């Protein structure tokens, strides 16, 4: 059995006792489910195209697998991170062969040269390490214990983009949240053939390079605060008048994820009755990015606010706007008043 196909960690039963047994230092809570750490060394430009050429003469099957890894990176970056494209005169090199700078034990390695280029090196199939023989799945009939080139290429390209090795939970239950791992897995262990960046890879790419546009989902590996602002077309009206409310939803994160307009989400208008907020209507997309609008007939003086609830499949946090008070004159009485309206329950 290959070393890499083994379950590397088992949950330590009675974790506290085990930790006390094994550790003699000051303990800190285990990190996990965080975005990948950064490699440092700066960033390439947003959406920059990094071109690469072959070095060392990789065989056709290797080139195909490497190119598939490139396609995976381009398709799953979910951010404005650079893309990769083959060009016979490319600035960067993707190398396969015996002459690699990967150290004694490296299967593959990578070097960043921001802002223009990078290098990726793959050790030759069949290389004999102290720990065993290297088998690339695409070149060796895909036996158990092999490493998949496409997956490792995606891992290396994640490094190129600035991603450091993901920190897993002690039981590695979150292993598949990232492709960029300190220890890649071999066939057939779960994750050995992942062909898309994991959510915590994407999270760091979004933090560093921003999301593609205002409708793009934020990685669930993030917890990005949001802000909502609400305005009303009129704040003093006669009973039964129509008021248009407009909300603007923005991110309130750090760096690239600050002050981004957020479009195509579910924002509702609420009003307050006896100290409790109730939904009045779902606000439709407004006239510009990040805005939401709804018009309602108002029959009584009320406080209104916009509310954005945390989406279940996205890394945005909930927010609500400040209250906007609408003062209604000539309060409706008698049979002319609606028995029930969305705005005056």
């Amino acid at each position, binding site marked *: *059995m*290959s*070393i*890499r196909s*083994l*379950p*590397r*960690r*088992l949950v*330590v039963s009675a974790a506290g006792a085990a*930790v006390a*047994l*094994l*550790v*003699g*230092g*000051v*303990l*800190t*809570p*285990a*990190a996990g489910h965080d975005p990948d*750490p*950064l*490699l*440092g*060394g700066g960033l390439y430009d947003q959406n920059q195209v990094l071109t690469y*050429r072959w070095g060392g003469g990789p065989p056709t099957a290797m080139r195909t697998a490497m190119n598939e890894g490139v396609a995976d990176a381009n398709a799953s970056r979910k951010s404005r991170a650079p893309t990769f494209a083959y060009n016979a*005169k490319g600035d960067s090199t993707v*190398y396969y062969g015996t*002459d*690699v*700078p*990967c*150290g*004694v*034990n*490296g*299967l*593959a*390695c*990578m*070097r960043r*040269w921001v802002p*223009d*280029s*990078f290098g990726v*090196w793959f050790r030759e199939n069949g290389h004999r390490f*102290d*720990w065993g023989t290297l088998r690339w799945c695409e070149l060796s009939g895909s036996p158990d214990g092999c490493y998949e080139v496409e997956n490792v290429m995606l*891992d*290396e390209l994640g*490094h190129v983009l600035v991603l*450091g*090795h993901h*920190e897993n939970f*002690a039981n590695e239950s979150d292993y598949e949240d990232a492709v960029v791992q*300190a*220890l*890649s897995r071999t066939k057939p262990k779960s994750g050995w053939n992942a062909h898309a960046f994991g959510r915590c890879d994407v999270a760091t790419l979004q933090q560093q390079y921003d999301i593609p546009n205002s409708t793009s989902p934020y990685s669930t590996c993030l917890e990005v605060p949001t802000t909502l602002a609400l305005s009303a077309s009129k704040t003093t009206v006669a009973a039964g008048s129509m008021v248009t409310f407009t909300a603007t939803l923005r991110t309130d994160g750090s760096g690239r994820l600050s002050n981004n307009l957020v479009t195509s989400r579910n924002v509702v208008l609420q009003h307050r009755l006896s100290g409790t907020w109730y939904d009045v209507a779902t606000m439709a997309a407004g006239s510009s990015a990040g805005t939401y609008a709804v018009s309602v007939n108002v029959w009584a003086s009320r406080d209104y606010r916009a509310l954005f609830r945390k989406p279940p499949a996205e890394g945005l946090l909930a927010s609500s706007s400040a209250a906007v008070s609408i003062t209604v004159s000539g309060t409706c009485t008698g049979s002319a008043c609606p028995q029930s309206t969305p705005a005056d329950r």
Partner: protein
Amino acid sequence: MSAHAVSVRVTVLAVLLVTLAACGPVPPPTPATEPTPPPASGPGAPTPIPDAQPPDAILSGLIEGNVVGDLGTYSWDGFVSDAPWLTGPAGGSTTPVRHLAVSFRPTPGDVTWHVEWVRLAGGRPGNTVTSTVPAFGPVRFDAPAATGDWSVGLFARFGAGRDAAWFWRVEVAP
């Protein structure tokens, strides 16, 4: 840096040196060399020689003395090498729950670390694995309580863009 901080660092360095001296001879560090990079060709071809590498990690507390770990996966100043779990160099043994420690040469600064133990069967990793939670500061931990052949991996971070893993093979005997 304050005078107090300098004093603390000098004290720590002195303690470290005394500790190392007391632990017997330390194998020479692995030469900081890399395989010859692929020949550059064409304009703009990168030079792939790493500028720097992780330090040596030296396991102390073993009955036989100190052992330099096998360097596995690491990220260092923009260069990344991805390696598998390594069984580690043979030759170290200890008693159960004996105190072990790892020092670095050269000292790279503050470190956050955790270790994992994998039981070996026939020289190959088996299925029993234990892991500590991350800790900050000096790398000190205990050998497993169970006897047998083990592989221990140290996973350490030294700040932005610098992390590395080292491995040792350790026999735990009564």
